[in-house]
């Protein structure tokens, strides 16, 4: 297309405000898809980051650090205490001990300010007790619930022995962090904002790749039918009629039921559903182009049929095919979402928008609306914007609507 007609096209496109807004929204979604890893606050695919304490939190809640249990042996030798953690596990907290007099030992938790649910001391030497602690009915275990200042003291009427060992078990309370789940979390404790951004990425990727592959395949068949005519044409067009007669969702379900789920299989299913639209459009426009004199001129210049089809006919059919492509991206995205919603599309670990909506569906009656609603709204906006964009392009391409 020449620069002049391209400018003209842009000007006419911009006459519709809806179209411009749709274009901008679509571009935002494409940007989301491209930059999801940079934009999203967490990586929703990293399963190790998930914790059930965060599950089903509404929008605006903070991430909790779950409480943990720390154990340490505290050895007293010649009046000085040394702490050796019983398990070398990764913990945020550590236990400290210090003497507070001849018959007193204070046991606490680092870092300062950690809220403890309980602190239990086991194997106290005879005659010693834990201040404010309850003794186990049978065992020599003393437990203090919610110890003040996260510290307990071992006290005794007589001085404590020179050498002894106790076991301290500290259980901390759940702790708030600064991280905010802006759109809440789903049933796995996944940040919905991140999940939606990655979901857009997957949906846009699947939509573009599937619609693109269907375009290449369908257009090739359409051009072949238009060029060869006769039996080839009849066979291809009957296949197209057959495909057009079947409901897209049903075909997708059947294919995925056979192949199993996964991104590449969803793409394949969409291509199988959509190639026929392109074949039909490409064929009809190619036939009308083939009837024009410039094609006869090309034949008279003894150009090869392949060259005539690809270099002369195809570029003249391209505007219509591009319009179809825009509309079919939206259709591909909604088909993928429907399939994922029905549980045959993409795997749960890499959720698309449809999958997210589906995973929130079970919670919707317990007022945990955000898991389904937010991805649903995003999907809706995306599909509506792309459809409006495609409609506008189609109108601009339709000479009958020209003023």
């Amino acid at each position, binding site marked *: *297309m*020449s620069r*002049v*007609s391209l400018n003209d096209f842009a000007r006419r496109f911009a006459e519709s405000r809806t179209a411009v807004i749709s274009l901008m929204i679509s571009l935002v979604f494409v940007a989301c898809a491209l930059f999801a890893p940079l934009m999203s606050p967490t990586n929703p695919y990293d399963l190790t980051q998930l914790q059930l304490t965060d599950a089903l939190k509404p929008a605006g809640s903070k991430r909790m650090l779950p409480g943990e249990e720390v154990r340490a042996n505290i050895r007293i030798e010649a009046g000085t205490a040394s702490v050796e953690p019983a398990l070398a596990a990764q913990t945020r907290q550590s236990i400290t001990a210090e003497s507070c007099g001849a018959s007193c030992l204070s046991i606490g938790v680092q870092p300062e300010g950690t809220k403890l649910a309980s602190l239990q001391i086991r194997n106290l030497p005879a005659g010693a007790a834990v201040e404010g602690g309850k003794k186990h009915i049978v065992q020599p275990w003393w437990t203090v619930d919610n110890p003040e200042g996260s510290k307990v003291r071992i006290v005794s009427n007589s001085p404590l022995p020179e050498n002894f060992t106790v076991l301290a078990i500290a259980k901390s309370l759940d702790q708030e962090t600064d991280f905010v789940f802006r759109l809440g979390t789903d049933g796995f404790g996944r940040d919905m904002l991140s999940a939606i951004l990655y979901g857009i990425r997957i949906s846009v990727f699947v939509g573009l790749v599937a619609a693109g592959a269907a375009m290449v395949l369908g257009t090739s068949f359409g051009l072949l039918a238009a060029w060869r005519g006769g039996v080839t044409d009849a066979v291809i067009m009957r296949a197209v009629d057959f495909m057009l007669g079947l409901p897209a969702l049903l075909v997708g379900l059947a294919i995925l039921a056979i192949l199993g789920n996964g991104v590449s299989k969803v793409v394949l299913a969409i291509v199988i559903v959509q190639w026929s639209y392109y074949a039909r459009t490409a064929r009809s426009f190619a036939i009308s182009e083939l009837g*024009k*004199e*410039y094609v*006869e*001129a*090309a*034949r*008279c*210049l*003894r*150009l090869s049929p392949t*060259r005539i089809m690809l270099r*002369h006919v195809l*570029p*003249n059919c391209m505007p219509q095919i591009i319009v179809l492509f825009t509309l079919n991206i939206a259709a591909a995205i909604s088909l993928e979402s429907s399939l994922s919603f029905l549980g045959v599309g993409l795997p749960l670990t890499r959720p698309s928008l449809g999958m997210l909506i589906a995973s929130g569906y079970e919670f919707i009656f317990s007022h945990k609306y955000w898991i389904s609603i937010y991805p649903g709204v995003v999907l809706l906006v995306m599909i509506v914007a792309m459809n409006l964009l495609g409609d506008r392009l189609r109108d601009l391409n339709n000479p009958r609507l020209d003023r």
Partner: protein
Amino acid sequence: MNEMIFEAKDLSRSFTVGRSALRNLANRFLGERTPTVLRAVDNVSLTLREGETLGVVGESGCGKSTLARMIAGILPVSSGERHFRGEPYDSLLARKRDALKIQMVFQDPLSSLNPRLRVGEIVGEAAVLHGLVPRSRVKDYVVDILARVGLPADSISRYPHQFSGGQRQRVGIARSLAVKPDMLICDEAVAALDVSVQAQIINLLMDIKRESGLAMIFISHDLGVIRHLCDRVAVMYLGRVVELAETEQLFATPTHPYTRMLLDGMPKISLERRKFMPIQGEIPSPLNPPSGCHFHPRCPIATEHCRRTRPELREIASGHVHACLNVEAL
């Protein structure tokens, strides 16, 4: 006398109309009588000598374009033989570079140019692909040809829609010239243009012919143009040639009743605006042509004989043939 460059013997071309094979079958099954085969060109024989210009005239729909396409080798024949310099078309068309010697200029200056290609590509593409000129020198080559048809060098980077009708037709002519043809078929090459522009394009074609000695088949329904340009003229009626003679002789002593009507309809004094005058009577449908002589429903001297017998072309003077049963001499 010059060598023959082109010879056509008994060329015919039929089209199946109504398209759908299923419908044809149903029609046959139901015994319906809709004719589905259209004989656009019916047993036409022509010759063209090196450097000669042959005119073809006839009303709209008489099969001129169909004949032109068959001669250009871009439409298969239903029956008949075509020879270019003695070689049958089948073997000629297999050698693409030699087949380029036959070129065609089309009627519609806009639709005959690919709207998505720049003029440089339209004109230069075939010459490069067939190795007539190396890709590195194609630009100069195209500029030279554009200059020959009177277009400025900067046309090369423009698109067809940026030109006027006459300029577009110049581009179409340049496209043909770029592959160095020996025979040029102009199918109503000026019909879509304004009168003043028509004259320019006709002068251009005459100049080209004078410079390069091209043989030309010039198709038109404009008798004045034909008379001006052509050495010999063939008159077509409903797919058949009804009269063929040297231009001077045809215009001076037309013998076939149809030709006479055509010439009577032509203004005698001014040769400026020279379209057909409407001839009384409907033009019959080529789908269902009249029996015998196709012209009999409109012919003033038709007899019962004409209704039944198909007149064959016969020579009534040296180099002057016609297909009429009742007119015997000049």
